[in-house]
């Protein structure tokens, strides 16, 4: 085996050639991605814990699916999803205040503010003012909210916008579910949430986070004592993919970082005292393991480490615009000093994300120049190569 090219040798079907730029900048290609990916595959839209009580809801805009989804917990405790559209004349039932809107109804109802039509948390149309003045063609019983297929895995809420999904959520997750199922995501609920609208294609954003080759350069500012020792344990599982990111730590922690490390585990650059990771994650128990970087197709990155897990999500808004969301989950602090230590970790993490996102709009703008038609990937950029291949398979199908 040629160690320099080990991932390519293990996955010969992916080839080693250059990757075309066109799919990143073409509006026509994006239209196909909407139809063949975002309107057809399972999309991770929430944590179940975001709607803990009956009547709690979250509305999430899915621009790439041309809709907004209401995720709501019914009086029976079941989480369901519906299109946010009134059966009357199409107004949004829940008034949206942005990309994500949260709310709660103790009565378990949602009322359209246009004419006061009332829907239950199970989607049924319960009340229509002046109902008698409508005509025989209209029956309240047939005009609940339009349902969206919804299922839950490990506390993650997924929707599928297809009228009839081609496969179940578990079938779609396939080997990915087996790979990370042993990790207790629900044990960590305390989290930080950042978001921004990026003027770039969603795959530009995905790619920038899907390799560790950039650590030594892009993060020379925020993590100067941290060097990538490459990725390990690459596993491609249907449309999904994963690897272990390994980092070598230098010997010069900052004064603030040293103090924070004594108070709580918040930073990925700290070694965990002992590993409680499932045997599928860092199977060789490498000492330089920092976190598992997995891509849940199409647009969710799930990273796991000891006592920390975090996600990046890339929601296409247009061919050249992407909503990025980062959520970073840690152990709930019990003291002010532990809370302080977590703040130290998240501020440095935010700065690293600012370094990551810095390249994205520049990359997209340069791609649009048409000056180069391809990009070249090295072996450790295998997740990007796999991502491009999978997206194209779906688009060409």
């Amino acid at each position, binding site marked *: 085996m040629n160690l320099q090219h080990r991932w390519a040798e293990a996955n010969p079907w992916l080839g080693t050639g250059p990757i075309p730029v066109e799919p990143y900048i073409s509006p026509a290609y994006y239209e196909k991605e909407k139809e063949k990916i975002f309107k057809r595959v399972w999309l991770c839209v929430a944590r179940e814990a975001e709607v803990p009580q009956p009547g709690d809801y979250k509305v999430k805009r899915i621009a790439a699916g041309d809709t907004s989804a209401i995720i709501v917990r019914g009086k029976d405790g079941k989480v369901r999803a519906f299109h946010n559209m009134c059966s009357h004349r199409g107004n949004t039932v829940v008034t949206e205040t942005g990309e994500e809107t949260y709310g709660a109804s103790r009565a378990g109802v949602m009322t359209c503010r246009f004419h006061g039509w009332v829907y239950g948390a199970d989607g049924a149309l319960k009340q229509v003012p002046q109902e008698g003045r409508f005509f025989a063609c209209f029956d309240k019983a047939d005009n609940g909210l339009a349902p969206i297929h919804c299922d839950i895995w490990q506390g993650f809420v997924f929707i599928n916008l297809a009228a009839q999904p081609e496969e179940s959520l578990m079938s779609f997750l396939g080997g990915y579910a087996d790979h990370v199922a042993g990790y207790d995501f629900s044990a960590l609920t*305390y989290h930080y949430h950042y978001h921004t609208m990026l003027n770039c294609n969603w795959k530009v954003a995905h790619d920038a986070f899907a390799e560790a080759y950039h650590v030594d350069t892009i993060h020379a500012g925020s993590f100067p004592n941290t060097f990538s020792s490459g990725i390990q344990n690459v596993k491609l599982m249907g449309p999904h993919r994963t690897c272990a990111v390994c980092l070598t730590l230098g010997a010069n922690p900052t004064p*603030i970082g040293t103090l924070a490390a004594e108070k709580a585990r918040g930073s990925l650059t700290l070694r965990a005292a002992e590993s409680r990771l499932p045997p599928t994650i860092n199977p060789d128990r490498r000492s330089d393991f920092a976190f598992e970087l997995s891509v849940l197709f199409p647009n969710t990155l799930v990273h796991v480490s000891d006592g920390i897990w975090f996600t990046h999500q890339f929601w296409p808004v247009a061919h050249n615009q992407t909503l990025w969301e980062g959520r970073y989950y840690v152990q709930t602090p019990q003291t002010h000093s532990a809370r302080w230590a977590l703040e130290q970790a998240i501020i440095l993490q935010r700065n690293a994300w600012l370094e990551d996102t810095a390249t994205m709009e520049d990359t997209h703008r340069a791609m649009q120049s048409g000056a180069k038609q391809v990009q070249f990937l090295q072996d450790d950029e295998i997740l990007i190569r796999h991502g491009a291949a999978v997206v194209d398979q779906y688009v060409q199908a």
Partner: protein
Amino acid sequence: MSEIILPPGFEALAVHAEWALDTPDERHRARLASTPARLEAFYNGILPWLEKILEELDRFPLGALPESHHALFNLAFAVIEVAPHVELYRSSPGVPFAFEELRFVAAHGGQPTWAGRPPAEMRR
């Protein structure tokens, strides 16, 4: 300079009153609007006190910090916002080679941190 309330023994930190800010967004904007000299003065002024400050704050349960300690808490959290700039970025007020910082939204940015609420509350 605005006046702040500090617990006994910490009165000397009153010179850093401008950094006693309640929310992540306020601390972020203050750091961006600062100067290398002011960042260094604040960082160097707080660092020797930090262990003692955290010890003092830990006398109270999370979420039950009396008003007398809000400013002390705020100073300890502001130094986190400032520290990378002094320790790693040659005292530059902005993160070097970064995305436009104010376009990056923290969901918890407007929350007074001393209140001890989870930064992203599951139910809003």
